[in-house]
């Protein structure tokens, strides 16, 4: 039963010719996967490759995710620039990935001076002359990728809709109130303005304000990241959520609560989660969120088994990117003994 429900989960991946990955294999992913490693080892690229693999439904979604990943990664450089899909595809040049979900290949062929795109999606191979390709894109709305810049307002609005459609607003308010006791509510007002309702009663730090609903831009990045993650978990039911630098802007004291919410909602909404971090505190918070005493107070249906939580350590062996995958018990033991597991 459990197996059938989780059949969309990616369990293994092979990546060739993608950014820092020449020829890489990893297997044993869980429901919730935290990725650690040193700078520039390829944590984000690893997650992007997994995202491309599971996002792709057809050629339009394949091209869309290749473009979107590259665009998001160069977010700041792309401001005021007109980056086309063609530019990005030509920059990428070559890509191969295989998993229990999809086998995908993309490359540019050159025959008699004519350039062609070659796409392979499982058994389906497509070759198109570059000049004839329409570059039409299609989004896979159930897969979400929160990059290191966080969601913009329109992305946040999109995932908040899922909370509304599932009537989970009250739970969201409860989680936000636990994050900051002065936050009472969250709404998208007027169709496009994300706003938090703050406590303006006498003893609140917001007592001087007349208007309780405040624009999201008045709050720190941590709160925005928090609400983005919670709403995304509701938006990714039976699908996948990717979070780059999950602890961005979030104080360490709030991280175990965030992980606790992620573990509960990943199970409840049947989401496979991948997240990256550099932070020892973030890894420890994941362990704390799943200790026996925390689990004692949780409904059985929200408790994850030890092999549903994985820590993926990336490093370089003889110059090539490599991985070590720890299950929860192994992670707990390494953390308890202060062993270094944040890359090599």
């Amino acid at each position, binding site marked *: 039963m459990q197996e059938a429900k989780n059949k969309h989960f990616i369990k293994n991946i092979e990546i060739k010719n993608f950014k820092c990955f020449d020829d890489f294999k990893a297997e044993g992913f869980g429901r919730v996967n935290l990725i650690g490693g040193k700078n520039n080892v390829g944590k984000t690229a690893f997650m992007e490759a997994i995202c491309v693999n599971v996002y792709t439904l057809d050629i339009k979604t394949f091209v869309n995710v290749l473009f979107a990943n590259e665009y998001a990664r160069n977010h700041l450089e792309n401001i005021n620039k007109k980056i086309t899909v063609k530019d990005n595809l030509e920059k990428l040049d070559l890509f191969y990935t295989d998993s229990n979900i999809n086998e995908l290949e993309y490359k540019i062929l050159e025959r008699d001076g004519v350039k062609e795109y070659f796409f392979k999606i499982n058994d389906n191979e497509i070759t198109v002359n570059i000049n004839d390709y329409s570059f039409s894109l299609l989004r896979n709305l159930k897969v979400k990728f929160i990059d290191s810049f966080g969601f913009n307002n329109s992305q946040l609005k999109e995932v908040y809709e899922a909370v509304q459609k599932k009537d989970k607003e009250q739970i969201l308010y409860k989680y936000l109130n636990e994050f900051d006791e002065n936050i009472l509510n969250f709404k998208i007002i007027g169709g496009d303005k994300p706003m938090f309702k703050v406590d303006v009663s006498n003893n609140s730090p917001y007592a001087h304000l007349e208007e309780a609903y405040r624009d999201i831009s008045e709050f720190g990045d941590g709160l925005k990241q928090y609400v983005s993650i919670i709403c995304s978990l509701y938006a990714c039911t039976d699908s996948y959520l990717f979070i780059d630098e999950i602890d961005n802007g979030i104080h360490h004291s709030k991280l175990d609560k965030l992980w606790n919410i992620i573990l509960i909602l990943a199970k409840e909404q049947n989401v496979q989660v991948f997240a990256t971090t550099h932070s020892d505190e973030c890894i420890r918070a994941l362990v704390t969120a799943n200790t026996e005493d925390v689990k004692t107070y949780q409904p059985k249906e929200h408790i994850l088994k030890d092999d549903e939580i994985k820590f993926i*350590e990336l*490093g370089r*062996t003889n110059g090539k990117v*490599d991985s*070590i*995958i*720890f299950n929860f018990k*192994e992670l707990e*033991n*390494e953390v308890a*003994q*202060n*062993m*270094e*597991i944040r890359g*090599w």
Partner: protein
Amino acid sequence: MVRIFCEGSDDKVFLRLLLNDLKKSEDIIGFDNFDSIVKVMGGKSNLLDKESYSTIDKQVGKQLTKILFIFDCDFKEDDKVCGGFKNSKKAIESLISALDWKIEVDYYIFNKNLDYFIIDTLDNKKNFEGCEECFELKELNKNRKILTCIYKSLYPKKPFDFSHQNFNELKQKLKNLFKDEK
């Protein structure tokens, strides 16, 4: 990266002291966090059991490139299989062979145990042995744990004399472990 496997948390505390001493004398360069290098295996039987290393197996050859086992040989009469120096040596060599890690692996065995080893290096060793005899401590605790506890209580700020010749072999093994590591 290197890793040291020891039996218990007292061993870890002692090894951290010794490693920091080696760092101070610049025999080890470039390391700050020795805590993350020394792993407690939870007793000699776990340390010598191949099954204890399933997580380490994943790391060997990737994150881990050099390994050092450090443990007590204990007393022959207490354990016919692993007690005493000869049996301990045989057991660790058999473990290393069974693990078959294709990386540099070495071991160091304390004569009897860490507490014996430490007492032997004290400049006022005779006083402690007198105390041991007077209170008939050997009958209570032949591991000399009580004596090292007394030493630590009497001289909380006085470190062990790591320049004592008895430390030389262990220090050399630690230096070899960290050689070429950064």
